[in-house]
């Protein structure tokens, strides 16, 4: 259901990408749909979601993230197994050739700990993605409402 929705909305996006949904490229990788949620104060961790498309023929992996917005940004994965959700640290997120890998609610996500300041809706901040093979690329992350469940460019209809 969600995949169908995302697919349909992705087409809308290609038709006319909004500025807020910029795409940055690094070799065969393109990175877009970077978003986060507003935080309540600065003591709770923020989240970072993004989509990475690998148009090449070589598998890559996202091995880390860095940002001036948080002193301790890490990759995590939400795993729901046997009815229990846990959130182990992910050493790296596979970015297979020919596929789009999403950091999205309920799955892989960046967890931004020790925030420099609270994230407010409407703000944006840079996150640098570090790939095993392709190197580094920086993307601008939009801060959406605390209640946002997906990137705003997906709601362009």
């Amino acid at each position, binding site marked *: *259901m969600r995949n169908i929705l995302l697919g349909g909305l992705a087409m809308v996006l290609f038709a006319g990408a909004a500025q807020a949904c910029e795409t940055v490229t690094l070799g065969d990788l393109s990175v877009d749909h970077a978003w986060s*949620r507003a935080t*309540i*104060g600065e*003591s*709770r*961790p*923020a*989240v970072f979601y993004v989509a990475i498309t690998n148009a090449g023929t070589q598998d890559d992996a996202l091995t880390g993230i860095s940002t001036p917005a948080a002193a301790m940004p*890490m990759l*995590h994965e*939400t795993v*729901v197994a046997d*009815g*229990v*959700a*846990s*959130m*182990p*640290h992910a050493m790296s997120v596979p970015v297979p050739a020919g596929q789009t890998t999403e950091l999205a*609610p*309920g799955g892989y*996500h960046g*967890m*931004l*700990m*020790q925030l420099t300041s609270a994230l407010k809706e409407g703000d944006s901040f840079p996150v640098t993605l570090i790939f095993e093979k392709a190197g580094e690329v920086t993307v601008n992350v939009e801060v959406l409402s*605390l*209640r*946002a*469940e997906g990137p705003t460019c997906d709601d362009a209809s």
Partner: protein
Amino acid sequence: MIRLSVLQKVLWGAVVLAAAGSVFIYQRQPVQQIETVEAFRPEFALADADGQIRQSAEFRGRHSLVFFGFTNCPDVCPTTLSEVAQVMDELGPDAAKVQPVFISVDPERDRQMGLNEFTTAFHPSILGLAGDAASTRAAADSFKIFFEREDDTAAPDGYSMSHSPALYLIGPEGDWLRQYTYGTPASEILADLKSRL
């Protein structure tokens, strides 16, 4: 007198057998069918943000949407809270018939960080509860849910909480009616709720 106590023994034996049988049946049933097997009424007595003890009994007469989580959780919990908030918004006038309840599985830290601040940021109707360790465990056991502290150097304060992420619907009589598994779209929850109100 003696005959009576024999009778009592027989009756008690029957009770034990019936109880064992119902446990057996309960364990063999898929979760969705529990409501047809036997009503079960989860109980809790937990402090709210002001330190007042709130008991499950006070929510009788309305439906309750109960979920467990912790406020330091950046991914799963905001998703669930957002869905609950959306459901409450879209219930319109029926919203008064539903009480959403967030039960902290990390009560000490959540209390320090501000429980109300967290729940009201999603929706003012959400009641946040954070008991002590024993009452939190008792509440989770009553709902038959799991939570556990996990040491994790890659988490704030060196630990995270794993927990059952589903939403539980409790009826006006206090009966457990069903669960909505994690990721159930708000629209589905809303449609199901509306059919019951």
